[in-house]
């Protein structure tokens, strides 16, 4: 079995130690960090995400696989000299103000990182203004918002509204998710996308990022 396939397997099994060791070995053997990142770590999380979406595995397996991915990333990070770890775009995520439920949001964060995005996680109970400040500061292309409580869903509308007031609605796309949230609700508040699970969220974020890049190039 090739080294990368080995990492891929151990990542799916959630074995952080093996992923860390094998990543180190792969580098010693002359495989480029970028290749390990794309073909083992990101590819591994891609498979995990798909299996999760198909209900073949559940949240615990995903969380362990994510830990294994981070273990591999920790080995690679110092090797991307001076430059940042290459990423597909910067995404700001958070559970909206008044809501402390973050399992779903964390899972989406894991999957986005696993797909090669840089994720700025603002945590839970995030006020609308904080989302706006963060996208300006980080030059992010997408805001991902989560809510579990029906009472906190309206905060999502506020964020969309604030973006519009700042004239940022074309540079920064919004995507929402969470148990009570629906496609119809997204349309109602003017969010750019809605996603029903984490795998679908990754797909939608890719599309949103491509949209922004097409319009503004790599640096919005």
């Amino acid at each position, binding site marked *: 079995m090739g080294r990368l396939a080995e990492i891929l397997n151990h990542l799916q099994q959630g074995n952080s130690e093996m992923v860390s060791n094998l990543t180190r070995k792969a580098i010693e053997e002359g495989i480029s960090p970028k290749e390990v990142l794309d073909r083992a770590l990101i590819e591994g999380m891609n498979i995990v995400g798909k299996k999760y979406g198909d209900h073949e595995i*559940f949240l615990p397996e995903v*969380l362990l696989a994510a830990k294994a991915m981070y273990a591999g990333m920790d080995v690679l990070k110092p090797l991307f000299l001076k430059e940042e770890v290459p990423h597909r775009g910067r995404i700001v995520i958070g559970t909206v103000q008044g809501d402390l439920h973050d*399992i779903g949001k964390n899972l989406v964060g894991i999957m986005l990182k696993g797909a090669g995005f840089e994720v700025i996680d603002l945590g839970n109970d995030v006020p609308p203004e904080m989302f706006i400040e963060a996208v300006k500061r980080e030059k992010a292309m997408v805001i991902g918002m989560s809510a579990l*409580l029906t009472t906190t869903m309206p905060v999502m509308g506020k964020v969309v509204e604030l973006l519009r007031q700042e004239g940022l609605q074309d540079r920064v796309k919004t995507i929402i998710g969470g148990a009570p949230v629906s496609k119809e609700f997204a349309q109602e508040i003017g969010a750019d996308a809605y996603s029903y699970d984490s795998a679908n969220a990754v797909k939608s974020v890719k599309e949103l990022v491509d949209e922004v890049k097409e319009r503004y190039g790599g640096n919005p």
Partner: protein
Amino acid sequence: MEGILERLKNGQILVADGATGTMLMQRGLKPGEPPECFNLTHLDIVREIAQLYLQAGADLLQTNTFGASPLKLSSYSLEEKMEEINRNAVLAVREIARGRAYISASCGPCGRLLKPYGDIEPEDVYNSFRRQIEVLIGVGVDIICIETMIDLTEAQMAIKAAKALSPTTPVIATMTFDPTPRGFYTVMGVSIAEAARGLEEAGVDIIGSNCGNGIENMIKIAKEFRKHSTLPLIIQSNAGIPEMHDQTLIYSETPEFMAEKAKELISTGVSIIGGCCGTTPEHIRALRKVVDSSVKGGDLPR
């Protein structure tokens, strides 16, 4: 009052109450406010809801303590008020029940993921439940209701804490399942067979499911539980899956619809039937009627 477990053993079917959270929201609970804070500030409303469910015919009245474990309260910086919140909730229900209904002490998830998936030790979860349940049992409740669980270990910690404090106080444990193409599983991947086995091992008296599903899925869940356990079953269904209309949340299942479907829960052998999110005193009244007119419960005095 005769013990709950004896009544269930004699084939009686009991009616539990309906939603608390959605009722509190209609009465002024603000977005992001923990429902348990009403135990400090609006006990009149907590009593009013218990009164409405008692009048609707509920045999079990839940305390407003779902999120009142020290771990959960700490995320709202309310940990110091833990004892007062739990005590007030029990006293409020007791004032209404006055021997006409059982006081069921609600204990929900701690809100954190256990190691190795999350950052908290199972032992800390055990201690958190133990502290909450010690207050509940100390003030005086008829049954402990551990509910909306998705992690089997967490549910087991809560059951064991309750049984360690009082082996004779009956314990209910319910988990929340999602329908998948491969059957029902909790978010953490626990199947109904695993739930039945694991909860029973921990010493639970009554098992079942609450939240997450409308009554049609709950019938399937009850049937699956029946296959894997001989313990009395409890089902507390949502009034359907919520839908947004003009920024208002609508739960689509009417009292009549739920009551009609509840007949199948009864024929499956479910012993306690109540409601979860979106259910109202009207739903409970309709369930009461169906339970009273069912063959098993029809000729028994209340």
